């Protein structure tokens, strides 16, 4: 059985009159890997591959190889399907007139691998259609099973409106998780991030088609290792308090604030998807009515729940003090993740401004990003930023936009922005 541990990192001391409590809560899962935690069918996997005309012969060939690599990682007994998408979507395997799933076994794996060799590059791109098709397939499986999709695209969502895509995404929230990958430099990072974020998955860039198979293998292996289907982060805050935000801050940044469902009037539940043996960090901020110096109270109970069972709990506290030495300290975990969140926002806002031709704003935001990365000693992000801006002074954040920027470098910076550096204890 999976075990969870939750621990809070915070400075519980608040200055006289202060109201906001920040804490990083680290949730660690053990015994949650697929091998140990699973019983019966491991889950449901759907592979969604872009077969639009822009994929071309080379892209389609590599897409088939990627689907094959993923199929090889799906363990026997898992329910699965393969969907091909362009401006429409259809189920490539199992071949049937109605949505459905096959049980993985040697025969079905061979049949599915045969089917994906029949991919043809043709038509446009409407990812909302792919998602809706996947949802229909997932809904044929028992809801208790872990449900995961890999989505591959190479282009922008040109054959449906943004609203149509939004509607499709929303209808899939809570039905399945999706890790999304874009190959090449013609897809839109923010568009695909929107899908991955809503469906509790990751987004990343695959620069060249030949790299897809390796990526699919890795993604599917990671998914197979997740033995806990659905866990919920719960945040209790006292009567009269306000939960300012709840964010996953590691391994990636994900703002969960708006995904609250009411567990009870004082407790919100936030989806976290499937878990393997891993740890994740959450940044919880609560605003309390100020109390007098010397008073102590609980600011939040942060719990990890599976179904109705609370598996772990960390307590976030508030103690008002007039000792500046205690209240002025910022907890290092809180400080570093706050800085990383600001860095990610600066990069994304800067790139969006640059794409929209607002060069002054782009220069200022990316300059701030350079400054933050420099302060944090985040050399990886600094080197990614250097491919987009010329840095004059990293300390002041003085930069110039590069005249010539590789589109892939810009996209790599964008997708890397939400990957955080783990802050150790």
């Amino acid at each position, binding site marked *: 059985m999976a075990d969870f541990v939750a621990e809070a990192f915070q400075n519980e001391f608040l200055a006289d009159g202060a109201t906001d409590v920040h804490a990083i809560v680290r949730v660690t899962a053990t015994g949650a890997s697929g091998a140990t935690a699973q019983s019966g069918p491991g889950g449901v996997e759907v592979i969604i591959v872009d077969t639009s005309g822009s994929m071309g012969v080379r892209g389609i060939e590599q897409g088939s190889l990627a689907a094959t690599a993923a199929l090889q990682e799906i363990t026997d007994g898992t329910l699965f399907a393969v969907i091909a998408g362009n401006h429409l979507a259809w189920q490539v395997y199992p071949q049937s007139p109605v949505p459905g799933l096959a049980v993985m076994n040697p025969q079905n794996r061979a049949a599915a691998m045969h089917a994906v060799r029949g991919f043809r590059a043709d038509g446009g791109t409407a990812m909302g259609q792919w998602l809706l098709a996947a949802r229909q397939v997932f809904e044929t499986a028992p809801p208790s099973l872990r449900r995961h999709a890999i989505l591959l695209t190479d282009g922008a969502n040109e054959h449906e409106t943004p609203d149509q895509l939004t509607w499709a995404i929303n209808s899939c929230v809570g039905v399945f998780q999706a890790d999304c990958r874009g190959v090449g430099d013609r897809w839109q990072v923010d568009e695909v991030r929107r899908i991955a974020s809503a469906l509790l998955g990751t987004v990343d860039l695959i620069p060249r088609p030949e790299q897809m198979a390796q990526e699919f293998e890795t993604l599917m292996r990671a998914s197979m290792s997740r033995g806990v289907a659905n866990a919920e982060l719960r945040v*209790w805050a*006292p009567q009269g308090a306000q939960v300012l935000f709840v964010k996953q801050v590691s391994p990636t940044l994900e703002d969960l604030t708006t995904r609250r469902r009411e567990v009870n009037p004082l407790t919100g539940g936030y989806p976290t998807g499937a878990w393997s043996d891993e740890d994740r960090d959450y940044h919880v901020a609560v605003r309390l009515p100020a109390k007098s110096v010397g008073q102590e109270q609980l600011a939040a109970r942060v719990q990890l729940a599976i179904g109705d069972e609370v598996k772990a709990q960390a307590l976030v506290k508030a103690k008002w003090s007039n000792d500046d030495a205690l209240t002025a300290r910022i907890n290092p975990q809180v400080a570093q993740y706050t800085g990383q969140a600001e860095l990610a926002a600066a990069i994304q806002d800067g790139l969006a401004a640059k794409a929209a031709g607002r060069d002054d704003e782009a220069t200022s935001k990316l300059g701030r990003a350079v400054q933050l990365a420099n302060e944090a000693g985040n050399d990886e992000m600094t080197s990614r930023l250097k491919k987009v801006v010329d840095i004059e002074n990293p300390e002041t954040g003085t930069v110039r936009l590069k005249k010539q920027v590789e589109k892939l470098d810009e996209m790599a910076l964008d997708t890397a922005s939400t990957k955080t550096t783990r802050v150790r204890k």
Partner: protein
Amino acid sequence: MTGDPTSLTPPPPAPPQPEREPGVGPGPGGPAPVSQGNVDRADLPTPPQTVTPTPPVAGEESPLDIGWTGVVPGARSAYEQAPSAPTCPACGQGHFLDGYCDHCGAKEPDPRDHIEESPATWVGGVSDIGRRHTRNEDAVALAAEPALGTRAVLVVCDGVSNTTDSHIASLAGARAARTVLDQPLATGVGTPEAIRAAAVRRLNEAVQAANAAVIATVTDRADPTPPSCTFTGAVVTGGTAVVGNVGDSRIYWLPDSGDGARQLSRDDSYAADRIASGVERKEAETGPMAHSITRWLGIDAPDDLTPHTTEVALDRAGWLMLCSDGLWNYCSEASDLQALLARLTGEGRAGTPTELARALVDFANNAGGADNITVALARVEQAAPTEGDGAHG
């Protein structure tokens, strides 16, 4: 004696004081045990009283038995067996889940943070954490016979705040001292001088017992800051109080009106030394090292622990008061305390000694509550009965 005063198990309903029958229990010349220790705990519920606790016999407690060791396991089970969990005193709605309220988040009060004792209608005391400290290192231990002015024992100890577990030490010390002081005095021929001499001897023994109890709480012999505390004790018998102290907790005699209000104890403190050398009291008590004491109980106590003792004739209506510096920091002069008591009485806050002690604690808290606050009071009326030809001053 009744049950452990800080136990979460409530005391049984106060039994009617049994008439003494000849041949049963102590006769008039024999030991006169003093009832004590009914604890007022307004913030705790009253679990069902399915079991009548057997009162422990006085003198059978070891210092470790009476030391505060956190929540008493037996008491906890009584608490948990309560049909309805206690309601949070802060919001009146929630219940305590994990040390905190499930509705408003308030911290579950530690019973040690606020202790009240009301052993008789004329004797009561309150020990409170105050506003700034994270634990209550003061302690109070009282005992009294029911009849006004007959016989009472009052002890206040203040744990030294920068020492280990001084909250355990002070309570162990106070209770050990009470046990000693609660024994009847060997008054010999019963003259005032004999009573006074016996009481002074008893105060010396009480200090030694308290010191032993404090030392028994030491868990680490190599601790550079071992537990330690002050001592103030008073024995009221007939119309006289004999008092003694070590450290800077105080004893005052505060008649309701007129001259005669005075501090009976003598501080063992750096501030007192400065006052003795001519520095103004106010300056000395607020100046540097004002709270450094020169004598204390504990494993590192000075060799001479002979308490400063004195006696006072309780020949007028008034209050005998013991208190920690958490109170007198905000009102030090006896005449000021007298006026404060008059004001609080005028406000209707002197219904019982415990209520008045609570009012004094509120006063100190409202003034800042910088330290733990403990106040113990014995009421004296003009027509104090005399027992054993009590002193007339």
